């Protein structure tokens, strides 16, 4: 799965997610990447998020929407909201989860419960950051 979130110079955010799903899936299986609130969500007032990992649990946990809800209603920072969404229902909904997210102020979060989180970001004219491993 791949995805992106962005904040532009006009203060608008957007999110996109795209995937080929999981190897050996049944024909017709739908994953989270095309589900609003599951694999992606964006709202100028709150945040933008794109998810990756096990689609079935991301859909059941409404993962992108959890980041949104934790920001909007519990007023958590984007970093804490993303971490809480990664951990939410982890006992019942077990599987890989990764999230990239940012708020309208440009604060960003990258988190996962995996050792691999292929990701990159760039803020303004600062140097880009690129990694394959979560721990880097």
């Amino acid at each position, binding site marked *: 799965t791949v995805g*992106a979130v962005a904040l532009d110079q006009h203060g608008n955010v957007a999110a*996109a997610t795209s995937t080929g799903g999981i190897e050996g899936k049944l*024909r017709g299986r739908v994953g989270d990447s*095309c589900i609003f609130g599951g694999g992606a969500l964006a709202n100028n007032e709150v945040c933008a998020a794109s998810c990756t990992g096990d689609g079935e649990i991301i859909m059941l946990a409404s993962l992108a929407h959890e980041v949104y809800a934790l920001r909007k209603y519990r007023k958590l920072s984007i970093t804490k909201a993303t971490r809480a969404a990664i951990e939410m229902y982890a006992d019942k909904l077990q599987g890989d989860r990764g999230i990239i997210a*940012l708020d309208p102020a440009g604060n960003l979060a990258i988190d996962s419960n995996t050792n691999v989180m292929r990701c990159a970001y760039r803020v303004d004219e600062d140097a880009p950051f690129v990694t394959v491993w979560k721990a880097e």
Partner: protein
Amino acid sequence: MGKYVIIIHGGAVNTDPGTIPPEKEEQLKKGLHNALTAGWEILQRGGTALDAVEAAVMSLEDNELFNAGRGAMFNLNGEVETEASIIDGLTLRGGAVSGLKLVKNPVRLARLVMEKCKHTFLTAEGAQEFALAQGLTLQDPSYFKTEEQRQEWLDIIQEARAEHANKHD
């Protein structure tokens, strides 16, 4: 003009570090960097977040190292079926597509659904008919299939057959 930021991902997984040798890690980083730059350049010029996320995701869809577009996983029947969505935080409009077998860039189709379709989510043949009507690039199914994914699929098929066989005397 305010701050601009782009973040991209190319998948999260738990795996043995030995399955990603240094040369593959470098290729993955290069692919991520290219996609990041495709989106960042749009933002830097004053373009929209919507255009930036679309450009970044299209870059990753075109790179066979990532599981989207070309290089996507096989289903049990040995076919590729892709899906995507895009959302505009300004207008709260969105577009989504699934069950695609021929569309080169699913995220581009999702954007067109958002902007030019009275519906929000199109699937399978209907989505592909809409793609054709919008003049999107379609590809032969072979375009999406890579040798690495084919081999993984073969391993799964053979494992499933072996498991099934073990259930019988």
